[in-house]
């Protein structure tokens, strides 16, 4: 049986609506053979957690161009509280260095900055999806 493709949510939380980056990344992950769930911007944290549960997502990509990443630590806590600690979260966009450190401490797997190559993003997401799957299989063998 062929392996299931990685399952990725590409979304934006908070108030910003700049979505060029999230659209380009979503399309490229899809072209790379992944299953991508794309949402409009302005999702609230509860909605993202619900979607991650329903879709059985392995990776959540948050695009942040205008400080919405400041809400990501809350998202990480909400995912853990919902028992979705194995879901890997990546953030892409305009993230100042000091904020990046905070995000990584909060459990974000990776922050992508402007100029990141789509190929590299796809490779990283693929490997994080595999990690998430492995964690889940260990938890629910």
């Amino acid at each position, binding site marked *: 049986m062929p392996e299931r493709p990685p399952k990725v949510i590409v979304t934006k939380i908070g108030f910003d609506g700049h979505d060029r980056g999230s659209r380009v990344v979503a399309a490229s992950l899809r072209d790379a053979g992944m299953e991508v769930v794309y949402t409009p911007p302005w999702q609230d944290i509860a909605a993202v957690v619900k979607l991650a549960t329903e879709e059985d997502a392995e990776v959540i990509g948050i695009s942040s161009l*205008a400080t919405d990443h400041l809400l990501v630590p809350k998202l990480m806590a909400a995912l853990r509280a919902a028992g979705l600690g194995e879901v890997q979260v990546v953030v892409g966009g305009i993230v100042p260095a000091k904020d990046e450190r905070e995000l990584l401490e909060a459990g974000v797997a990776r922050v992508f900055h402007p100029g990141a190559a789509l190929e590299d993003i796809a490779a990283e997401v693929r490997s994080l999806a595999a990690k998430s799957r492995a964690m889940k299989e260990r938890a629910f063998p």
Partner: protein
Amino acid sequence: MTEFEAAERRWREAFDASSGAGKRLANRSGIEVQPLYTARDWPGEGAPEAAFPGEYPYTRGIYASMHRGRSWTQRQLIGLGTPEDYNARLREILAHGASAISLIPCNSVYRGYDADEAPVELLGTCGTVVNTVEDMDRAFRDVPLERISCGMNDPSPFTLQALLLAVAKRRGIAWTRLTGTSNQSDCLSHFVANHMFFRLELAGARRVLADHIAFCNERAPGWNPLSVVGQHMQQAGATPAEAMAFTLCSAVQYAGDCLERGMDPDRFLPRFTYFFDISISFFEEIAKFRAGRRIWAKLARERLGAKDPKSWRFKFHAQTSGADLTRQQPLNNIARVTAQAMAGIFGGLQSLHTDGYDEAFSTPTAEAARIAVATQNILREEARLTDVIDPLGGSHYLEALTDRMQERIEAIIARIDAAGGMYQAVRQGLVQRMIGESAAAFQRSVERGEQPVVGVNAYTAEEDPDAYRSLDYPERARMEAHVARVREYKAARSNDAARKGLDALARAAQGKENVMAAVVEAAEAGATHGEICAALRRELGFGQPLIVV
């Protein structure tokens, strides 16, 4: 064979024999660029008056004196933190001689909420939190409202302008003395591209905009109620030709709505303004602006029936493209912004914002903002780009490219017209698909290395972690205190008056009254920004953009 043809043949043979000469080049709009342009490629201006700025069709500029007479307006975007933070920054730039200012509200404001409805983490991090007439008064404390021109980043239903009008009335300043622009009034561009500003459903936003134009024409005639924004679409990935075409189609659509109400084109068109992106594709951008001016003049005159030359003039603000800036080797962005700004200046802009070099990783720091303004001053006063009007006019290349861009833009306009105009085209997702395809194609060209980006896919270097100083966010405790103040305002005002104002607003939205007039009255009655947005969302629908991936 003429001597010209013989010389041309000799050049062609020598050129073809040289290495690398066979490579085909195209600009971002897909126009093939030849290695050389001669008199053969540009037959001249045609009509004698077309050789002059201030004359139809304004290829060389909309005013007779252009930048030789008066500099473009330097209008930098400002706004962070509390109204007091904004006021301090505003007074600082006014003290340095600025008269053209801007107000960038917090993203929570953009989405139509008051501070007490938003996560405090985000408040004031990208713009100023202004919700109440008291906030607006604090933001403009000790600032003579009648002596500044304010670029208000204020989407439909224009609550910030309403709060400003309320403050003006309190201070005894007639609305007819206020000047400024509603910078985020173009709901079509928000439906398609910068969705943050899309608060009301498209049909409602469209109606409120027409009401707003009529209201300003009558009650605040010095205010520009409309800025049609090609910038959002180009930042979202549209090519320069697409962005210009979509902007012109949107302007025609809005003008059509005003004409349908029986408004006189020569009353409202002189107050239409435009806002564009300037990418680093230097000659293409200059040609985009020259071609756009020409097409608008013809559209306004022939299609919209305007007779006053003021209606034919294509007045635009432009901002250097943030999408071209890189996080890698960030000081390189100063060079990029310089090239972009030069293209805008040679393109004949009326107003310019230059980006901070740190845009790819921070809201601009004070140093970056200072360099951005200095770049404009250096280009004007040291490099002396403005000594001569339209100094690149008559260049075989630029003139031929202006013609080619015009053809390309007109072809896209014809496609949108065939779809039934801009409203229909965006409802069908046609514009969104075109932008998405162009964004993806550009990204592919960067990733394949066809489009070099210094520091990203070419001339890369080890990153210097010290290069990334970023702006501090406002202190959380101060934002929390501001939220408390907004709550206190709501508790202390006459709720009865505010409620009546909001009820009248709802009735206006249900009927045929001017909604903008009712927005202003609600603001004067003490209703807040978030309450006005909520009332109209109940009546006209919550804006949900059509997103095509």
